[in-house]
Structures are given as C-alpha cells and as structure tokens.
C-alpha cells in the first residue's frame, strides 16, 4: 500500500513537472502578436535622426554631395523601398502567422513579405532584385528580426536623397514596447556607400479600432513629374571621414 502511495506521489510530482514543462514550452514558443494597423513616424531625412551624416565612403559622400532630388525614384512612382516604406507619413497593416509576416503599406499600395519558414535567400537574388527586397524573418525572444537583401539599387533610403547600392543589407528588429507601440530598429549595411553599418530607431504607434488603409495609387494623377527641376541641395557638403575605429588589444 505504501509503495502504491509512493508511486502516486512520484506520479503527481512528475505530472506537475510535466505541466510546468509544457507551460514553459508554450511560453517560449509564444511570440508577440504584431498584427494590426500601425502608424509610421515620418522621417524624411535619416541623418536628422542619426544626428549627423552616415559614415560615408568617399563614393557615398560624393553621391550625397551631388544628389539631385528631382530624380527621386518615388516621384515617378517607383516603389519606395523597405526603408522609406516604414518612414513615410502613411500607415501600414501587419498580418502575422507562423510561416509569414506580411506588411501592406498604404503608401503606393506596396507590400513586403517576411518569410518565417527557415528558407534562405535565393541564389539568383542579385540578378532579380525587387525594390522592396527579399526578407527572411525569425524570432529572437520577443523580437522579430528581419534580414533583407536583393533591394533594387534604384530605391532611396529617404526623401532627402540618401542612396544605396545593390549590396545593401538591412537588418530590422521589431519589438513591442507597450500594447500600442512598437520599436523599429534598422541597421543599414552597405560597403559601397558606408564604411560601417549604422542604425536608427523609430516608433510605430497602433491605430484605432476600425482604422483602415486608404487608396494610394501613385500613378492615378501624378502631375508633378513635368514640373520637377534639378535640385542639388548638398553641393557645399564637405566629407570628413570618421577616424579609424580603435582596434581591440589582443588578449
């Protein structure tokens, strides 16, 4: 009888441990639900957020000095690229499941797909870039991390005219900071334009229940094009390279 009681106690203890294990597993597998209507923080010039110009290479600095904002790809309704999608003054919808997260931007009615199924970037991505890039996502704890490559070099990073090459790699981190706020940290890594990766942070704010995405069909009545005139606001820009980063002493 005592043996049976002991077995019962062991069984109960095992059951409790089992339940805790299941619970812990559910929590670790549980990821934040980012689904919803989100409002961008309008950021027409990334260097304003950064507090200075990004760490240009000589080539990147000369491109910035001579950029002509009349040649903005967005002005002729080419897709704005992943960076401007999240910094324009228009909201977006995020829809999430285990295999994919999709972003539907009001601005230009364009989209991004974050593939969450463990795939790799396609081998021929460089030959077939897309303005919004090819994005792979995964969770690191409660943070969504997205690696985007294959971004068409004709897109710009912002309205001010910061450009990039086909080698641009974006790393974005999405983290809920409250029920109605989400922090977006984006790192721009492009060895053609920048000497090192650099990052900014922005905050997305949740819209109200019932908010909807409205039409933005860029070519519907784009009368601006014929009125654009050359505009080079940075011709006096003087490039000052960053001092070399201090190397870590050998251990």
């Amino acid at each position, binding site marked *: 009888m005592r043996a049976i009681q002991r077995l019962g106690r062991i069984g109960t203890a095992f059951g409790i441990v089992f339940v805790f294990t299941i619970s812990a597993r559910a929590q670790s597998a549980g990821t934040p639900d980012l689904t919803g209507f989100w*409002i*961008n*923080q*309008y950021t*027409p010039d990334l260097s304003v957020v950064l507090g200075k110009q990004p760490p240009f290479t000589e080539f990147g600095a000369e491109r910035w000095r001579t950029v*002509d*904002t*009349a040649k*903005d790809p*967005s*002005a002729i*309704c080419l897709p704005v690229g992943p960076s401007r999608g999240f910094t*324009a*003054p*228009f*909201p977006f919808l995020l829809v999430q499941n285990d295999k994919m997260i999709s972003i539907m931007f*009001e*601005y230009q009615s364009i989209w991004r797909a974050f593939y969450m199924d463990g795939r790799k970037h396609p081998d021929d991505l460089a030959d077939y870039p897309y303005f919004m890039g090819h994005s792979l996502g995964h969770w690191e704890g409660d943070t969504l991390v997205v690696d985007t490559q294959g971004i068409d070099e004709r897109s710009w990073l912002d*309205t*001010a*005219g910061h450009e990039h090459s086909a080698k641009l790699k974006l790393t974005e981190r999405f983290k809920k900071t*409250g029920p*109605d*706020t989400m922090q977006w940290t984006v790192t721009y890594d492009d060895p053609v334009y920048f000497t090192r990766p650099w990052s900014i942070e922005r*905050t997305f*704010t949740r*819209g*109200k229940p019932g908010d909807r995405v*409205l*039409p*933005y*069909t*860029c070519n*519907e*009545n*784009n*009368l*601006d094009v014929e*009125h*654009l*005139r*050359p*505009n080079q*606001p940075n011709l006096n820009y003087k490039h000052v390279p960053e001092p070399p980063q201090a190397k870590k002493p050998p251990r």
Partner: protein
Amino acid sequence: MTRGIAALVMFAVVASGASIAAHHSFAAQYDRDKPITLKGTITRIEWANPHIYFYVDVADKGETTHWAIEGGAPSTLYRAGWRKDSAKVGESVTVDGFLAKDGSKLVNMQVALLADGRKLFVGTQTFSPKGH
C-alpha cells in the same frame, strides 16, 4: 505612452501640407522664396493620388488667369476630415502657397480659406487620438 503621443503629434504636424515631402523633395518642384497669395473661384477639384489638385480662376484687371493648386494626399486629407465635396465648384477661395520653380501657374497650397472663413484641405488632425 508619452512617446506614442509625441509620435502622433509629430505625424499630425508633418502631415499638414507637408505630405508632398514624402513623394519627393519639396524644393525639386517649388520655390520657398516665392510665396504667393491667390484669390479666385474654384473651377475643378481632382481628388486623386498622389496629391489632390484644384483649379482656380483669378480675375485681375479684366483678365482671367487659370491656376492649378496642389494639396496633400487624399488619404491624409480624408483622415483630417476632408471629403471630395468639402468645397464646390464656383466657391471663392483664397490660397497661400509657393510658386512652382518652372514658372508655370502652379502653387503648392499651404493654407486655403473659403469665403466664409472656413479652412479648406488642410491636414492638421491626421490620426487624432480622439478618432475620426
């Protein structure tokens, strides 16, 4: 939460007459050094993307000139409470804005006032926390 409100306020501020800066740089099309005020009659309204346009006939010394006025994006204006029929053809309007760089009769609207003093197509309440 404060950051959230700050983000909303920033959004509302920049959405007011500045939405053209999302589509392309303001200075590639308009001249900040050439402000202008026009008073005339609305002849047509185009509620379309990427920016609304309305057209104004301005009478001066027996001659009538035709002007195009560019405003914000329809979605921005809609959320600010404006509708495509917020103004009617034939209404009088006074427009403050900036002239196009190419010398055409095109103005980027900053403020427009109807004859009864109501503002027109100004996006100052986009994404108000109070709802819309």
